[in-house]
């Protein structure tokens, strides 16, 4: 039975995508139905991993070296659960956002293919299979991004596609070199056989460079803001919250699983430094962005920077409860950012739809007239800044604590500056909501669109803020018991 539960999160959305392609008239209905089923299967799998620990199977019944393995450990289960919930929220939101428009028909099949690729990436345990998944992810994301058809959207997504291809090919060269030396593609087998050598470090550099390009790490982030800002709201929510996260997940998987014995402090420091650059540059550009969605896109670049700060610290800490805490905090930060950014983009889409534009300086009326949307922007914003009631506050607390314990105190300055800059650009948006215009009579104005955004933002704040314990137990750590 467990083998089926591992394959369902991939087969269901793929089947849904195929049906949505074949029957365009009822694509929205099919889309939401498949979304519900996929979300359920994702959460069911996370439950299984919670109960019985890591799950892994080999497809085709040929045993490891030949067949392709699928595995779900704590890390992938946590991200799978996040992507299921965020995906469900996006699907319900998209039902309202695209209702009636002809573009909606194209959205659903591509969105379900993207979801398939996402679940595929989280569950894959084979390097070449990851390449195919990354390509499917990149292609469907680029196609979805260009859905609006405007000049900016098409040129931004063309550039995104080219950058994605460059990233995948570089990654593939890394895989080729690994296959040359060790003759197998399975991550599990490789992590046992790999020992430090020139080839392995070169392939690590190549694979990390390719994935960093796809994860928009600092100097290679130039393609992200225009692509995410010009996409329709549900698409940019999916891009920022999920697609970029998948590339980061892979780097984390490679650095802590496959190349655990290879990575040294210097390489990890470079990743950390690039992350710090991303935080400062992303937050600075977000502060100066004129449009709300551009601000959100640059804030994604900054948040990805935070995630990369974990690498030098993970490298410095010896395996033990402290390192488990840090790893769990990294997962918590990734999951919280997923919820918060999805909520933020969905709400921003609503504001844009209502106001007709999303120039921040003239958003007063719209923000005022939609209290629920502004409230979800506030909640999601507080999670992006990392203010207390949110999960990212706890992750930041553990991150800062480990930075001090490992003596790498300089990351603290970066985090402090990043928090202040983030507070500046989030509250620059929120201060627009306090104008003189009278607020409408009730809190929720457009239920079908506002509820998903509100729930996603709420999840990042209340749920993860006060109950982050499950992340630890999902990863199988019992945490620091002094």
């Amino acid at each position, binding site marked *: 039975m467990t083998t089926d539960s591992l394959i369902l999160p991939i087969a269901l959305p793929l089947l849904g995508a195929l049906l949505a392609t074949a029957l365009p008239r009822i694509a929205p209905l099919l889309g939401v139905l498949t979304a519900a089923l996929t979300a359920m299967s994702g959460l069911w799998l996370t439950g299984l991993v919670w109960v019985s620990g890591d799950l892994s199977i080999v497809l085709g019944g040929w045993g490891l070296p030949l067949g392709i393995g699928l595995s779900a450990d704590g890390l992938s289960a946590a991200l799978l659960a996040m992507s299921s919930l965020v995906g469900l929220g996006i699907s319900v939101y998209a039902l309202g956002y695209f209702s009636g428009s002809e573009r909606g028909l194209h959205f659903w099949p591509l969105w379900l293919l993207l979801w398939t690729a996402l679940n595929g990436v989280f569950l894959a345990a084979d390097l070449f299979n990851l*390449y195919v998944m990354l390509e499917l992810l990149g*292609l469907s994301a680029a196609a979805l991004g260009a859905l*609006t058809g405007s000049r900016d*959207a098409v040129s931004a997504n063309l550039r995104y596609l080219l950058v994605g*291809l460059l990233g995948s090919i570089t990654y*593939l060269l890394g895989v080729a070199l690994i296959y040359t030396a060790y003759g197998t593609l399975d991550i599990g087998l490789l992590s046992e056989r790999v020992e430090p050598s020139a080839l392995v470090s070169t392939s690590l550099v190549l694979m990390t460079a390719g994935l960093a390009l796809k994860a928009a790490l600092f*100097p290679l*982030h130039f393609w992200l803001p225009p692509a995410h800002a010009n996409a*329709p709201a549900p698409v940019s929510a999916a891009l920022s919250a999920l697609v970029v996260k998948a590339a980061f997940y892979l780097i984390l998987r490679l650095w802590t699983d496959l190349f655990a014995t290879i990575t040294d402090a210097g390489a990890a420091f470079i990743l950390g430094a690039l992350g710090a650059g991303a935080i400062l540059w992303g937050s600075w550009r977000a502060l100066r962005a004129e449009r709300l969605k551009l601000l959100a896109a640059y804030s994604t670049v900054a948040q990805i920077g935070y995630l990369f700060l974990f690498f030098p610290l993970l490298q410095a800490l010896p395996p033990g409860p402290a390192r488990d805490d840090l790893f769990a905090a990294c997962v918590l930060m990734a999951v919280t950012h997923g919820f918060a950014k999805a909520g933020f983009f969905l709400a921003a889409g609503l504001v844009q739809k209502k106001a*007709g534009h999303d120039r921040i300086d003239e958003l007063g009326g719209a923000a005022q007239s939609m209290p629920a949307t502004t409230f979800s922007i506030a909640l999601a914003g507080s999670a992006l800044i990392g203010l207390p009631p949110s999960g990212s506050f706890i992750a930041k607390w553990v991150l800062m604590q480990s930075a001090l314990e490992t003596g790498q105190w300089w990351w603290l300055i970066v985090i402090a500056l990043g928090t202040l800059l983030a507070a500046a650009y989030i509250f620059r948006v929120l201060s627009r909501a306090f104008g003189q215009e009278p607020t409408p009579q009730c809190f929720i104005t457009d239920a079908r669109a506002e509820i998903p955004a509100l729930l996603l933002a709420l999840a990042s704040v209340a749920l993860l803020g006060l109950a982050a314990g499950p992340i630890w137990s999902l990863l199988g750590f019992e945490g620091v018991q002094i």
Partner: protein
Amino acid sequence: MIAQFLYGGAGILLFALGLWSLLVHAPLLRKLIALNIMGAGVFHVFIAIAHRGDALPPDPVPHALVLTGIVVAVSATALALALNSRLEQGENEPEPASSPSPGPRIHMQPALSTEPSSKGATHP
């Protein structure tokens, strides 16, 4: 073994050649050709390491990988060309009024501009 290195080396040279062209040349078509050549280079490396001398039959697994890779590369090229043609189509007609995000066209770096080199690229 010498043949493997010879061919594999050619694949790596192709990869490097494609990378250089991608970073240097601006027009989209040349970028696409560069990307395809890089892809061909990597596939060539796979095929080279699959070759186990003329006596033994070659290793089928890299062959299957390359086959899949070729199809993936062609589909990506098709999508890129379609996006580009849509871009050119959009160039001579006025922007379709119906697009839901008619925000003022902030100064967007045209897609065909030079691909900033991967070191310290800063988006203007």
